[in-house]
């Protein structure tokens, strides 16, 4: 029954090969474009999924300074204009900007958290025998010749503003880590210990590791001791044992030397255990005296200010998303935000591919609309041309519905064949074409970043790098992110995804089938209407 309709349909296709090949070529063109669009979308989806699967997400809780500033804005009383309470803000920043370790630990209890580590950062000064690496030319003689004057110069400056702006003018940035995980540069492999060994992050012994540059600069080796001083009180001395020397390849001193503060030079970074650094901070707090600054008249205490940053790690992205809700329930108020630099850098990496995917989406819609219109027109012509045949078939007693079904089968068979061919061709060309398009997108994105960098007076290329080809297949992604500690020092280099390795998969094939079905239905519906409308008597009577 149905069989003869199908048989007839194929016979008709065979008998009008020319026309069907023409329709097939048009559908092929549509299918090929659609396949490309779908493949690009799929590639973006794949890249996203693969990256996210392999990515361990970490998050930090940070103080939302902007919302706090909003709160500080006084409503103008007695016709006074609204004013900003700077002192209160400074005080607020000093007190509220960081959560306490206890609070951080409490949030680590959230069920989604799979790992937790924290780092205490403080700025300390060196001593006569232990000087920071600097490229600044000291005004009076060389650093080695006049260590006193050199450190005094900095100390003087630090005395003025050092309280609030955490030790920006001090010699060393000291990091007290809770575990080796917190030493992100080492975890990512950009830094490694070249001599000696790492300290025990749980011990409160005053052990530390220093950079190669710093060791060379001061002629130090493993086993030596160094003396650090409280920048607010040079009488307070702390003697640390150097247990290891590390080399940080990601730290490029050149880009930091221009930016002033010696302690921000990565060469001047000293790692030690959290309990050890905390011990130093506590000692300075116990001995703290309140002094008044001669220049500003503002009071300050001599204890060392430290900042605590905690990082939570998650097994997957979903855990990260539930983390924020959990900490809000645990009592984190709105002046703090939960953010993930992994996710941000991942999103940045995805920009070209996402843009391309979005464009592919629009392209797909346009192609399908144009394709549908072309097919509707073609099929209407087809049916009109075959009017007589329809008349004969119905006069022979074939129901109009069956005639329509036969026509639909013909359209479907031709469309399906063309779409499958399109999918096969599309499957082979989609990867190179997508990569070529992606290259253009990355170049555009890189240009854009360069332009922004130039607008801010920085040279092109400082804000973004073009990833070497083949270096950015989604699998090894998500790892190379800018280090948290240096993030604010320059625009982060974004390692865009520049290549995809596969685009076609069963999803795309199924989507293509869906498109074939959709196009058939749309164009078939048009011809069905004509078939149903025809009156065999009139057709046969009007025969030319």
């Amino acid at each position, binding site marked *: 029954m149905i069989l*003869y309709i199908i048989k007839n349909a194929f*016979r008709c296709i065979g008998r009008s090969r020319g026309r069907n090949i023409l329709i097939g070529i048009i559908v092929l063109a549509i299918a090929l474009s659609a396949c490309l669009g779908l493949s690009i979308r799929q590639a973006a989806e794949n890249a996203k999924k693969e990256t996210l699967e392999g990515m361990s997400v970490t998050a930090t809780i940070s103080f939302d300074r902007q919302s706090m500033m909003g709160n500080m804005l006084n409503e103008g009383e007695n016709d006074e204009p609204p004013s900003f309470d700077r002192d209160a803000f400074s005080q607020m920043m000093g007190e509220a900007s960081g959560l306490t370790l206890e609070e951080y630990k409490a949030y680590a209890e959230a069920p989604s958290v799979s790992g937790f580590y924290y780092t205490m950062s403080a700025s300390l000064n060196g001593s006569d025998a232990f000087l920071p690496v600097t490229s600044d030319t000291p005004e009076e003689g060389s650093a080695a010749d006049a260590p006193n004057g050199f450190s005094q110069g900095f100390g003087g400056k630090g005395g003025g503003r050092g309280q609030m702006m955490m030790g920006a003018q001090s010699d060393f940035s000291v990091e007290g880590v809770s575990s080796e995980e917190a030493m992100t540069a080492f975890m990512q492999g950009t830094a490694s210990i070249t001599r000696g060994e790492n300290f025990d992050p749980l011990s409160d012994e005053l052990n530390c590791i220093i950079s190669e540059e710093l060791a060379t600069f001061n002629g130090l080796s493993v086993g030596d001791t160094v003396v650090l001083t409280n920048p607010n009180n040079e009488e307070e001395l702390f003697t640390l044992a150097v247990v290891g020397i590390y080399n940080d390849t990601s730290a490029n001193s050149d880009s930091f030397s221009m930016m002033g503060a010696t302690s921000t030079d990565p060469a001047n970074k000293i790692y030690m255990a959290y309990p050890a650094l905390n011990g130093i901070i506590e000692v300075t707090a116990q001995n703290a005296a309140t002094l008044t600054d001669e220049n500003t008249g503002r009071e300050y205490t001599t204890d060392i200010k430290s900042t605590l940053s905690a990082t939570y790690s998650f097994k997957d992205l979903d855990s990260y998303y539930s983390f924020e809700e959990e900490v809000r329930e645990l009592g984190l108020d709105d002046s703090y935000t939960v953010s993930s630099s992994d996710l941000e850098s991942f999103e940045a990496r995805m920009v070209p591919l996402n843009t391309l995917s979005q464009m592919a989406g629009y392209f797909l819609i346009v192609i399908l609309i144009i394709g549908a219109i072309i097919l509707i027109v073609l099929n209407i012509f087809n049916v009109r041309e075959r009017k007589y045949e329809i008349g*004969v078939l*119905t006069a*022979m*007693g074939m129901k109009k519905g069956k005639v329509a079904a036969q026509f639909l089968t013909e359209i479907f068979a031709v469309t399906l064949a063309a779409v499958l061919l399109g999918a096969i061709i599309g499957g082979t060309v989609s990867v190179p074409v997508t990569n070529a398009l992606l290259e253009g997108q990355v170049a555009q994105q890189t240009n854009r970043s360069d332009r922004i960098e130039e607008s801010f007076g920085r040279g092109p290329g400082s804000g973004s790098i073009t990833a070497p080809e083949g270096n950015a297949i989604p699998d090894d992604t998500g790892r190379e992110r800018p280090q948290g500690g240096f993030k604010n020092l320059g625009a982060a280099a974004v390692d865009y995804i520049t290549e995809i390795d596969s685009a076609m998969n069963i999803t795309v094939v199924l989507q293509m089938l869906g498109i074939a079905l959709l196009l058939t239905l749309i164009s078939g519906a048009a011809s069905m209407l004509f078939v149903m409308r025809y009156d065999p008597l009139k057709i046969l009577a009007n*025969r030319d």
Partner: protein
Amino acid sequence: MAILSLKNICFSYGITPVLENLSYDFEKGKMYCITGRSGAGKTTLLSLLSGLAAPTEGDILYNGDSIKKIDKYRLRSKYIGVIFQSFNLITKFTALENVTLSMDIAGIKGKDKKARALELLAEVGLDEDECNRRVLQLSGGQQQRVAIARALSCKPEIILADEPTGNLDTETQREIMEIFRSLAKKGKCVILVSHSPQVAEMCDETYALLRHSKKK
């Protein structure tokens, strides 16, 4: 009893009346001839009988039942075989395919359809080579034979033929008429449209249609 009977049939295309108040009876085993001048409405009458058009007034009875109650597609594909004046074959199909398609539409089952179709085509005088040729590559007379074979393919009780011998030489004309004769003898009801007196002579009964405008 008449297998087909017209009861006061009227038909008009729009406002132009073509057939007026016709009452004819057609019986099984007989051969009828409908004559009339060109434009008298012979083809129109056949369209009514085959259910392609419905009478504006009156009724057509098939086996005593109103034709209105019968599925027209079923009627055309199974009960009535029509040979159209202009053949109405599927020209891109072969003669054989036209016949088997008609069998398929009628819902005839069995694997011997092709053999039966060839047999039918041979009966009307087409050899196997001609059977496998596209209809377009057949002569007018050959096409007419294909149309006859197709009309017979579903073993209908009634055969309607519009000018079945119009394109044929006297020799072939006689052959074809013999086929119709034998069908009538087998108990079918054969209704022919022709203005040829020879054809009318061979029929059991003749109905003459008058051109409406000239009707008194």
